[in-house]
């Protein structure tokens, strides 16, 4: 089994803060219900427009805060799920069943989540250790 982050790309409407129609909300609700019934939905949220967000840009030791909104709409995320599935193909099959999240063109991206086992091969001082240190552990 694996976990997949399934991300809905933002649209002009979602960036403009326009809420989905009642019909779409109902369809999404039914789709989410199917995911729950299948036992694969771990988490999921919709994100507000990037106008309400910010970015922190790193350059060496310097940090610069950039306020939203951000221009590249098609690269932004408007919502996500976390699914537990058996294969990428299973995730693809579920995404096929998802209602189109926006009018017209839209895109959903599926990405596999790293699991602890993925670092198991690395030596103790390797990535796993780094992750622990990053999390402020001894």
């Amino acid at each position, binding site marked *: 089994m694996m976990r997949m982050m399934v991300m809905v790309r933002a649209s002009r409407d979602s960036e403009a803060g326009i809420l989905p129609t009642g019909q779409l909300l109902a369809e999404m609700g039914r789709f989410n219900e199917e995911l729950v*019934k299948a*036992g694969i939905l771990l988490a999921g949220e919709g994100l507000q427009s990037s106008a309400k967000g910010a970015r922190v840009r790193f350059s060496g030791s310097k940090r610069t805060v950039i306020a939203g909104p951000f221009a590249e709409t098609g690269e932004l995320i408007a919502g996500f799920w976390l699914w537990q599935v058996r294969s990428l*193909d*299973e995730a693809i099959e579920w995404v096929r069943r998802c209602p189109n999240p926006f009018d017209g063109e839209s895109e959903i991206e599926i990405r596999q989540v790293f699991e*602890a086992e993925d670092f198991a091969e690395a030596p103790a001082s390797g990535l796993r250790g780094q992750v622990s240190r990053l999390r402020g552990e001894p």
Partner: protein
Amino acid sequence: MMATDLQRSIDALWRIESPRVTAVLSRMLRDVGLAEDLAQDTLLTALERWPEEGVPDNPGAWLMTTAKRRGIDHLRRQKLLERKHAQLGHELASEQEQHWADTESAMDDGIGDDLLRLMFVACHPALSAEARVALTLRLLGGLSTAEIARACLQPESTIAQRIVRAKRTLARKQIAFELPCAAELRERLASILEVIYLIFNEGYTATAGDDWMRPGLCEEALRLGRVLAGLMPGEAEVHGLVALMEIHASRSSTRVDGEGRPVLLSQQNRAQWDRLLIRRGLDALERAQNLGPIGAYTLQAMIAACHARAPTAQATDWKRIVQLYDALAQLTPSPVVELNRAVAVSMAFGVQAGLDLVDALAADATLKNYHLLPSVRGDFLSKLGRLDEARDAFLQAAALTGNAREYALLQQRATDCSRATGRS
């Protein structure tokens, strides 16, 4: 689409659809074995047709419709056969027509109910625990016989036989494909919960180097638990079991060290516990407690939650855990629960108090061969500085365990005791 891509996407689709298809056919045909055969035929049809004709727009619905058609064809053939053999009268024939009509309308009913029926049948108490596990993984998990064999560390032929025999038992005993009546519900549900928890524990005891199918059983059990929670949202213990599994699963990456040795709860790196699973577990626990009555799974989940909530091992609320073990011991009295309770008592009220309980338990014959009893006793004795006795207890425990890693750990602890007392 490349042939292999298509094959993989049909596999994925079948994983999603096969439990539902099998469930609906089981209800039509009242025979789980036959239903699974027809479901497999449906899959074969798809595998033959789709590469040439293309995948239909709604492949899930296509599979279901095709399967139902096969089911109806089968019923028709059966009826023709019966006519020939028994010269059925007109009256009976029309009764059968009515039966079809019933079947057709029943098919439009909730698939959820059919899935639930399938769970109750696969976990029927008439079957042995291992048969229930294999059948559940096969029918509801959509796992192949080979996958189940790999996951359960059994030869494929053993699992195949187990499944065939289970189906035969269901047919021979004429187990109805129905939801249990209210009087039977508790016992039958307990059987489903037991099977799901067995599957979970099978995966939980997997060690490093095992086939990845084994730890995958934990996730499959969790998925089945979540599915069941959706089908029976009003049953507290279903949520209790889900909570217990989610919280245990949250610790899976910290339970063994880099060399595959078990790490005690108190030594685990809590920052690496999976916060999402803990939160899901606590949510499920809240649902269980709100619904009530509080059963054994819910109590165990409450104990697991005490650990999950403690930011450090030192901050664990051991007095609360002792209370919960008291309640668990009342609900399901067992020497194993008593032993766990003794550990909690030692943490809450001092090692001597725990040792007194363990010594009393040692008199219980049922724990004679249970390696954890001398193991816990050894731990208490060593903490009290009674190292000679502790060493003997660890050696006794080592002799009883069947697990190589535990054996090594217990031998090591015995050696540590000897070294501390200056003996070799």
